[in-house]
């Protein structure tokens, strides 16, 4: 691993594919020494960020996220945009390992010189989002990518986490076999900037249109997050490349409206705050778990809670007070 922050900073600014890839590895590293360099790199690069369209895409497994990104991304590069895709794959809780197979479903985009695709293992962080997706997004922006797509599996709290780091949050759905809404959560509707019903092709077109109507109805029951934007519902076929241009138009429209109203700036400020708070929380957790005293007593106290000798509330008090009694409230 390289120690000089300027190696990373210069490489990213030059949009050197190799250095960008290595810088992502650096920020994802769990070593403190790497994190210290990474913080420097991010701070230096921060002024060069903010210009890209940040797009989050979620959807249940089987909604065709990868196929959508393959077609959508290829269309964007055709229009002259440089596209970065950050895909998050679940790590196994048992082995810790992961299978990062996204590029097998993005065959064309994977070899496209205008595109950069980086799959990352979720590495145990909650909700199928990699710990460092935010930072990775900024690195890609600094490297000059025009559109950053963050793809996430629609499980746990990943939708809200991703929504809290992008400008536009797209929920990909498919029509069900019957008339039920396909596993969409209320929390997802609340953060969606658009719902796209994919796989509107072949004998599925009618069902997709029906599903569109149902999602429209469902959206009416949710208060829109912005006074200036009602999330639209549209159908598309990533397979047949139908509806992709329309989706891009909606995203551009959204950006125009939100920029004009000042909401985009507002949103990004809020996101910076929530990023900070996220880091604070993470820092506190690290501090806690790396404390020598905690490391010593944690197994004992855990065992006591497990065996019922000690109440969880009391145990937590004891543990936190080790860090300083004034932390207790």
């Amino acid at each position: 691993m390289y120690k000089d922050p300027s190696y990373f900073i210069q490489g990213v600014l030059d949009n050197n594919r190799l250095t960008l890839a290595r810088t992502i590895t650096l920020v994802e590293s769990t070593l403190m020494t790497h994190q210290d360099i990474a913080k420097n790199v991010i701070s230096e690069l921060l002024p060069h960020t903010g210009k890209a369209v940040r797009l989050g895409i979620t959807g249940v497994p089987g909604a065709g996220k990868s196929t959508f990104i393959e077609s959508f991304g290829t269309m964007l590069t055709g229009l002259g945009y440089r596209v970065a895709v950050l895909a998050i794959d679940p790590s196994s809780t048992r082995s810790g390992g992961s299978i990062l197979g996204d590029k097998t479903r993005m065959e064309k985009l994977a070899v496209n010189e205008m595109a950069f695709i980086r799959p990352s293992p979720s590495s145990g962080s909650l909700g199928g989002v990699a710990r460092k997706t935010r930072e990775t997004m900024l690195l890609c922006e600094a490297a000059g990518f025009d559109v950053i797509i963050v793809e996430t599996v629609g499980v746990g709290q990943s939708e809200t986490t991703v929504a809290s780091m992008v400008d536009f949050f797209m929920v990909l759905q498919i029509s069900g076999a019957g008339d039920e809404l396909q596993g969409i959560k209320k929390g997802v509707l609340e953060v969606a900037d658009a719902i796209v019903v994919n796989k509107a092709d072949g004998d599925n077109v009618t069902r997709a249109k029906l599903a569109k109507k149902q999602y429209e109805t469902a959206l009416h029951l949710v208060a829109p997050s912005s006074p200036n934007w009602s999330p639209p519902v549209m159908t598309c076929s990533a397979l047949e490349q139908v509806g992709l241009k329309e989706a891009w138009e909606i995203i551009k429209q959204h950006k125009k409206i939100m920029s004009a109203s000042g909401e985009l700036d507002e949103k990004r400020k809020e996101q910076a705050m929530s990023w900070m708070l996220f880091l604070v929380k993470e820092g506190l957790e690290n501090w806690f778990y790396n404390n020598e005293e905690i490391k010593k007593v944690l197994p004992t106290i855990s065992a006591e809670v497990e065996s019922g000798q000690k109440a969880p509330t009391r145990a937590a008090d004891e543990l936190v007070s080790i860090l300083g009694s004034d932390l207790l409230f």
Partner: protein
Amino acid sequence: MAQKPNYNEWVEMATKQMKGKSPDSLTWKSPEGIDVKCLYTAADLEGMDTVGSLPGMAPYTRGPMATMYAGRPWTIRQYAGFSTAAASNAFYRRNLAAGQKGLSVAFDLATHRGYDSDNPRVSGDIGKAGVAIDSIEDMKILFDGIPLDKMSVSMTMNGAVLPILGMWIAAAEESGVGKEKLNGTIQNDILKEYLTRNTYIYPPAPSMRIVSDIMAYASKNMPRYNTISISGYHIMEAGADSVLQTAFTLADGIEYVRAAIESGMDVDTFAPRLSFFFGIGMNFFMDIAMLRAARFLWHRSMQQFKPTNIKSSMLRTHCQTSGWSLTEQDPYNNIIRTTLEAMSATLGGTQSLHTNSYDEAVCLPTDFSARIARNTQIIIQEETHTCKVADPLGGSYYIEYLTNQIVEKAQEILDEIEEIGGMSKAIESGMPKMRIEESAARRQARIDQGSDVIVGVNKHRLEDEKLDFEILEVPDSVRLEQIERLKEIKSTRNEAETQACLAAITKAAEGEGNLLEVAVAAAKARATVGEISDAMEKVFGRYVATTQCVSGAYSSEYSEANPESANVIEGFRKRTENFLAKTGRRPRILVTKMGQDGHDRGIKVVASSFADLGFDVDISPMFQTPDEAAKMAIENDVHIVGASSLAAGHKSLVPELIEKLKAQGAGEIGVVAGGVIPPSDYDYLYDKGCKAIFGPGTPITTSASKVLDLLEAQYIK
């Protein structure tokens, strides 16, 4: 008369011999999930509807012909092809002179995927895994001096089926043999390509139309021709057990029948020309039973289409001994394996058979190894007297029981597929692929821990292995030769006529018209394989594969079996965990397949098991160029790349990948190779910078350990 033996007395005796343990404790659970007891009796067969038929009569459990091999033995049909058309032609003629009866053509991967030999995507594949064919001129050389009106010719072609079949028909006509006289089989089984072999070109829907067009054309013009060979072989080679092979193959067959009927054909016009192709592995009795069960099931499944011709529901099949069961280690053992598998296939009642050469785990067969393989069949036919009786194992309690079990278990899967809406829908859902891969990962785990024994690999392994046989290598000059011939044909043909024929193909692809008919015309007008394929790709597009990968199957099979194995897995997890603690991330490996070889069982088993051991595993799309693989390795910033090669492209592709990585400043990313690589090439690859090579049969634990050794040495100081 002696008293009828009493089963209870046998149990008593067996228990005594087992020192008090019940003989039930000897029951073996086969990979198919069938409980195999140590004794079968008449009582086991009571009430079975699969027992008691006669050969040549429905439901054909005992064979499609009344007298079977007593009347006429199976056809010895050896699959071969390599290098140029001229080289393959000479090889065929030598084999025919030595007693082979039918021809079976292997094409190279460039041809399979519809590329001409001058396409830069396929520079590593020309003439390697089969013969290179670019135009009708190559086809004419391939069959030079072989009487096509007499010789039955089988061609393994699925993706580029239209240009190849078109060129064959056109070549025959130009040599004076009318298409009505042509005899043989085209594989044309596109569904299984999406499942396992991946040598498709177009998406499923237009591919199914191509299949129907060929069936329609042949039913009108080629009465002696088998228009499809529904293949379980590749499904087995991808790791499926015998029940999965049976179920998915028959389900593919049912799907083709439906497609043909939907395109307006009457079932009796094409169904008698459907043929099958099964793979025969080392589970000796199981695969005898599998062929019997498949015939029974096919007959039963076909009744829904109400055929009136009895041949419409009669399953006729070609078989091939398993290539997967061959080992690179102690390779002469492969002769014995192939012999046993050939026995299994013929006791099961196959109509034709290919026996593998012992050197195929390492390289292409030579004249010598091909002779041994061919003689294996001739000896069984001529010396063993096993051909004197039809279905000699019919009535064996055990065989009949297994037959019935396979019928029942395969029927369950067939029902499941029907519920999904047929095989095309099932393939779309990913169900068959996941089942096959799970079965493959479990098999690998059983081998790695020694519960499935492979002599010379995980038992009685030689200390010092020396390869002492001749190796056939296809020189790179084949590619240059083909490119020259392409230039020549393009400069001498009537260009306007060629272009008109190609335009007609595009038009037929868009709407009406029989695609094979226009392909024959284009072949005559000297259009190339690549041009004819492109003319359709304009309308159909090129199919993009999706790769799924099972997880957890390897480690669960491993630890289920015994606690010692669980420790092995735990040991690896500790090492990967330690790597994470020391370097800040898990060991990350990219597994990739370069070139046009689509056999992806190996990399999937590796990917799935490495992830189970705690690696982060990136999988590349299929058919990568070294350039593309390097881009992906760099972008994903992996520690190491594992390149899999089963089609003889390793000598150009692996060094090229290493060069590309170095050229982009990523020389620290190591490259290891695996697959069918002759040991004589090892030094060459090491010289070029390859860090490790894993031959066929390398246990995952060995390759994972070596990869970790390399990474620990490089990154943990």
